[in-house]
């Protein structure tokens, strides 16, 4: 015998008869009077409200033809009404039964627009795409994940987004009612407190148990995700809530209005103290990690640096500072600083200390690398969001002025404070400092190009050659380097002209390998809509975690030039295992490979060009001769410009 759905399920069913035709009414209220709805009565009160026209008709007239078998507008249609108010453009997701109702509503009721469903092969790809997309647009996407297993697949991507301070809206499916849900598979995929899987690395999570609570959760979640420091949020949806019709008990449904929160800025007293300290410094250095949230952040940082004639170390969490500016410097300059201003640093300790992985007994040792007495100023919003379990907060570093605040939002006040405290004597020093800095910058540039020339004609191809052949072809486009995973000795940051926000998007955040491929597809999607040219430097190990995202790019016609840095290894690990063997004074066992067993991706070599081709990409390779690289890139670019993705499998030097 089949049991009826219990509890709230049967409750809702009691309304079916009378509310069948009234089902559309709440949604009309929901979508037409967002502001007015703010003050609507809470859910349990509507029974006291006068019935609306549909309800009167339903009660006083003979029932008309039934619209659909469930007898009313499904809950998930209302969810789509809510999503539409947030203007979420895409939902890259891997389909699954626990959110089948919302899926159906998105593509049919919502006409597959805002959000548009994008087919993914893996939940990690969906999250990674949302991650990359945000870094171009500044707008979050949502990705739907299936019950327990889908959320488990998504976790590494979510952790990367968390560490990289990127908002992603995770919508999970979960069938809560243990007595009513289908036995077997859906029950394996259900959990009592499902978001516990990601609670340690999301800003907030919820499992709303009514449609009204969903509307509040969704808008609240979006707002939390979009308040700096940004971060992922997870909302899990009960299958019953999605599938059942909106009952009459929900007739007061409303959608709360979303207002973009303003970022938290530094307290004025601390800002003035920081300005004073920076002006008094002989050699102030600014170190920025995720400082420029927007293009304006770059402009502000340039203004501050020039006012102070301070050298700037861009750690590359975002594109913070033009590498063509004469004040741009490598990390080493921090060692000479007397004041360091750290902006949204994920690891201030490592700016002033170093760790050498070569100590006695195989354990590394720490040493100070900054000058004694150096003064430290920190502006970081991440301090407003510290959790206990995962260690992304890094080592504790004492500082002299600590502002738990958003750096970009604080920069205008800091610039003003510097201007107002600037004396004419101090201003007079700037010309001399600038002259010195320009000369030093020219010397650095000359050294970089000289280093790039070494092994220029080598095969496998040097990473410098790879990067410069690529830059040569894209430099006159409105280009965007959407990901550079694996390590190409930082040549793009050293030699390309990086000046705009979209020239460099930073890295994964949590160093979870497998970010590059999906993030580049997500960012390329955003760039496609903006008419920009996307290029990625794609490493082999990164691609193989979830290569199915290549198919997603082809399927949804996302143009992307992916040039592989194929060094045929998980190369970081090659060096780690080698290091262990050296410490232990024994030869490293390479088996039949060129490096330690278990670290090489060779014998057989993966034919990435064929892999990409099989999923609808134009592809070519393996390219081992540097002379063939330029022409191949040119060919691939023509394909990308026609709207298709293209991949070049290039055999490269390790780093």
């Amino acid at each position: 015998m089949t049991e009826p759905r219990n509890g709230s399920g049967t409750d809702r069913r009691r309304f079916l008869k009378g509310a069948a035709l009234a089902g559309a009414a709440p949604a009309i209220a929901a979508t037409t009077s967002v502001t007015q709805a703010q003050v609507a009565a809470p859910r349990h009160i509507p029974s006291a409200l006068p019935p609306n026209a549909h309800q009167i008709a339903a009660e006083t007239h003979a029932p008309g033809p039934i619209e659909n078998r469930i007898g009313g507008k499904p809950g998930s249609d209302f969810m789509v009404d809510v999503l539409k108010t947030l203007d979420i453009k895409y939902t890259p997701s891997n389909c699954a039964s626990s959110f089948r109702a919302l899926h159906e509503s998105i593509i049919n009721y919502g006409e597959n627009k805002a959000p548009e469903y994008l087919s993914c092969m893996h939940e990690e790809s969906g999250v990674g795409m949302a991650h990359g997309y945000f870094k171009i647009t500044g707008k979050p996407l949502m990705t739907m994940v299936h019950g327990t297993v889908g959320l488990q697949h998504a976790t590494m991507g979510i952790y990367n987004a968390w560490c990289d301070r990127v908002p992603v809206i995770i919508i999970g499916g979960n069938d809560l009612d243990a007595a009513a849900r289908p036995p077997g598979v859906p029950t394996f995929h259900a959990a009592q407190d499902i978001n516990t899987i990601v609670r340690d690395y999301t800003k907030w999570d919820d499992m709303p148990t009514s449609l009204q609570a969903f509307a509040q959760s969704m808008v609240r979640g979006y707002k939390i995700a979009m308040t700096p420091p940004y971060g992922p949020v997870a909302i899990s949806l009960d299958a019953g809530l999605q599938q059942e019709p909106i009952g009459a008990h929900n007739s007061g449904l409303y959608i709360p209005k979303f207002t973009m929160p303003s970022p938290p800025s530094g307290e004025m007293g601390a800002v003035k103290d920081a300005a004073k300290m920076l002006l008094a410094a002989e050699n102030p250095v600014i170190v920025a990690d995720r400082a420029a949230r927007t293009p304006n952040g770059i402009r502000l940082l340039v203004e501050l640096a020039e006012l102070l004639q301070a050298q700037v170390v861009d750690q590359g969490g975002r594109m913070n500072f033009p590498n063509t500016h004469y004040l741009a410097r490598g990390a080493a300059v921090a060692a000479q600083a007397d004041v360091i201003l750290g902006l949204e640093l994920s690891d201030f300790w490592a700016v002033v200390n170093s760790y050498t992985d070569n100590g006695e007994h195989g354990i590394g040792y720490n040493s100070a690398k900054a000058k004694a007495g150096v003064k430290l100023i920190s502006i970081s919003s991440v301090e407003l969001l510290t959790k206990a379990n995962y260690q992304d907060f890094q080592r504790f570093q004492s500082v002299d002025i600590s502002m738990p605040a958003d750096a970009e939002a604080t920069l205008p006040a800091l610039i003003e404070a510097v201007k107002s405290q600037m004396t004419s004597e101090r201003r007079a020093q700037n010309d001399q400092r600038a002259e010195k800095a320009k000369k030093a910058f020219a010397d650095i540039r000359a050294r970089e190009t000289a280093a790039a020339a070494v092994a220029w004609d080598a095969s496998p191809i040097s990473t410098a050659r790879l990067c410069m052949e690529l830059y040569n072809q894209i430099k006159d486009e409105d280009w965007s380097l959407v990901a550079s995973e694996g390590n190409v000795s930082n040549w793009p940051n050293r030699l390309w002209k990086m000046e705009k926000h979209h020239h460099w998007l930073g890295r994964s955040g949590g160093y979870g390998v497998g970010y590059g491929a999906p993030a580049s597809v997500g960012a390329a999607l955003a760039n496609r809509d903006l008419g920009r040219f996307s290029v990625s430097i794609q490493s082999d190990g990164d691609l193989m975690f979830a290569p199915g995202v290549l198919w997603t790019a082809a399927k949804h016609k996302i143009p992307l030039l992916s040039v592989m840095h194929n060094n045929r290894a998980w190369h970081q690990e090659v060096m780690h295992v080698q290091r262990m063997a050296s410490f232990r004074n024994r030869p490293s066992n390479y088996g039949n490979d060129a490096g330690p067993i278990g670290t090489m991706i060779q014998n057989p070599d993966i034919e990435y060009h064929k892999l990409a081709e099989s999923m609808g990409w134009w592809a070519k390779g393996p390219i081992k001769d540097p002379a063939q690289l330029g022409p191949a890139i040119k060919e691939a670019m023509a394909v990308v410009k026609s709207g298709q993705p293209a991949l070049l499998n290039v055999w490269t030097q390790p780093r």
Partner: protein
Amino acid sequence: MKTLFTLSLLATGLLATSAFAGDAVKGKATFVGKGCWQCHGYEGQGGSAGPRLANTQLPEDAVISFVHNTNGIMPPFSEKLISDAELSDIYAYLQSRPKPADPKTIPLLNLK
């Protein structure tokens, strides 16, 4: 000054071809087989994981001593792991690497 510099380059060249016991061909195989390529690149060109070694200005005995004894960021390779003779071969290989072209003559390094 200029003359001195040329002289010293000449001397290095001479050493690489004749005065060294090392064998550049064997040295290349050892450079790969012992894992030096991993951090220094197959050509000893250097990169983010290790400095350039190709055409090093360091004398041979300094290289040998460094490799055996370093306690900096490079892991040491004891005499058990690599012999002095093998390091001599590696040294010869590193000195046999072609001198890089003047970057001013490489168009891709002079893009506007």
